[in-house]
């Protein structure tokens, strides 16, 4: 009985300490990376390749998801809005949800898998094969060399990808409304414009910037933390996706309370 209790307390204590340790390390990484921004000559040459990897390569999957989201939103909106509610509200619903929520969040969740896991596995492999140590011995700051260009690339490219996704999502929703729902273009556009505010777009951009930082930051963190070979690399990638996804949703709620 007492043994059992002791075990429970020990478990909680252990988890608390390791949780705090993790937060401390993450904070350390953040401070270190921030300080490393000074070494412009180290990270700048890698910014463009990373932008291509993080941003350009993510465009197809993001657009694929946005297309189907738009179609489904359109169909479900028309199914939900029956009776008293005017049909042009399909446009409102598709536009608002794509811009405010689904565009940024679905894209970010997808990229948490695509970009976050990729970064984590790459840096994890570099860590366990001592390539990170090799960087250090060659007097390169690994944070400036590895972390900064990835985070910057994501911070810059996530909003771009999200804006494209929003555009495609609305377009596919529109197309669906015309083809499958017997709506007219003026109706759909009326609904789109009805509650539109430019601020919505800024909201989406701010969200995507933070999501980009979170996805790549978490990927770098777990990647550099990797221990114990191939298995460790896999574990880091998994953790990255889980933690980044959770953080994305928490941040989403945070921005919704703070900015709306």
């Amino acid at each position, binding site marked *: 009985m007492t043994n059992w209790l002791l075990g429970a307390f020990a478990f909680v204590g252990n988890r608390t300490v390791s949780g705090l340790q993790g937060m401390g390390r993450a904070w350390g990484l953040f401070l270190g990376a921030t300080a490393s921004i000074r070494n412009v000559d180290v990270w700048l040459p890698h910014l463009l390749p990373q932008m291509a990897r993080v941003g350009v390569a993510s465009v197809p999957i993001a657009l694929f998801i946005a297309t189907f989201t738009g179609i489904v939103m359109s169909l479900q909106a028309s199914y939900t809005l029956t009776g008293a509610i005017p049909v042009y509200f399909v446009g409102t619903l598709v536009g608002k949800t794509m811009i405010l929520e689904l565009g940024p969040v679905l894209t970010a969740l997808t990229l948490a898998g695509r970009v976050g896991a990729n970064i984590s596995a790459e840096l994890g492999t*570099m860590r366990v*094969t*001592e*390539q990170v*140590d*090799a*960087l*250090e*011995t*060659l*007097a*390169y*700051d690994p944070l400036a060399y590895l972390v900064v260009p990835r985070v910057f690339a994501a911070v810059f490219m996530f909003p771009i990808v999200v804006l494209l996704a929003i555009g495609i999502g609305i377009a596919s929703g529109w197309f669906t409304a015309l083809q499958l729902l017997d709506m007219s273009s003026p109706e759909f556009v009326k609904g789109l414009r009805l509650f539109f505010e430019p601020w919505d777009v800024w909201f989406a951009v701010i969200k995507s910037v933070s999501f980009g930082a979170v996805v790549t930051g978490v990927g770098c963190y777990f990647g550099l933390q990797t221990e114990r070979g191939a298995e460790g690399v896999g574990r880091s990638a998994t953790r990255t996706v889980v933690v980044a996804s959770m953080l994305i949703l928490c941040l989403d709620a945070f921005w919704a309370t703070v900015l709306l």
Partner: protein
Amino acid sequence: MSIYLTEVRKAFGPKEVLKGFSMSIEDGETAAIVGPSGIGKSVLLKHVVGLLRPDAGSVVVDGVSVPELDRKGLHRLRRRIGYVFQFAALFDSMSIAENVGMGLRRIPGWDRRRIEDRVEDCLSLVELAGMGDRYPAELSGGQRKRAGLARAIAPEPKFLLYDEPTTGLDPVTTSAIDRLILRMRDELGVTGLVVTHDMTSAFRVADRITLLHDGRARFSGTPAEVKAASDPVLKGFVEGDPDLYYRDGWRREGMHAGGQDHGA
């Protein structure tokens, strides 16, 4: 231009790897650290470049205490140190030439041409001339090891730390590498620290040989002294005789060759 290690202690969790290791390498000297696998040689070497921090004791390189250096100080020191990793640790997203050029790109005033020339020189030194366009995955283990060596020597460091530079190489290439290590010492005045368990190699390149045993320096002396020594552990290691090496009852974890059982 010297390396002093004093009473260095390092433990990973409950596992004590270094238990008060001391040794000194004077300017222009090349020393060898020998010892069986898993004894802590690589760990020791990483203390010298500050990749690991000792739990206790001091590591002084070129007059500065390494554990007390901040990032900037470490970088300044590391520009004077070349480190040959045991498993090469080549950047596998880059070609061999880019790998070798990595350290050179940090030197102010070096343009592309100069870097390319130097890279080509270093690659021929390790007999990899013309392989610069290949990627690490396309090389054999021995070739990778030599590329790692080329990367370490390229910026002409004042200190060179070799972690088993000849393990897994054929005898001819091994001699060539040994000759390269000697050239570094004689022509460039490099202070060298070679980790190896290849005694032939150690006798060839080292001014002094230290046996790492149970976390401490068990023996330290010139190759002649090593050959003449009567310490059973040293003798056992040099001659590759486990019965002798494990005679005092000391056992590495994971090894079940108990010396006492055999000796009794």
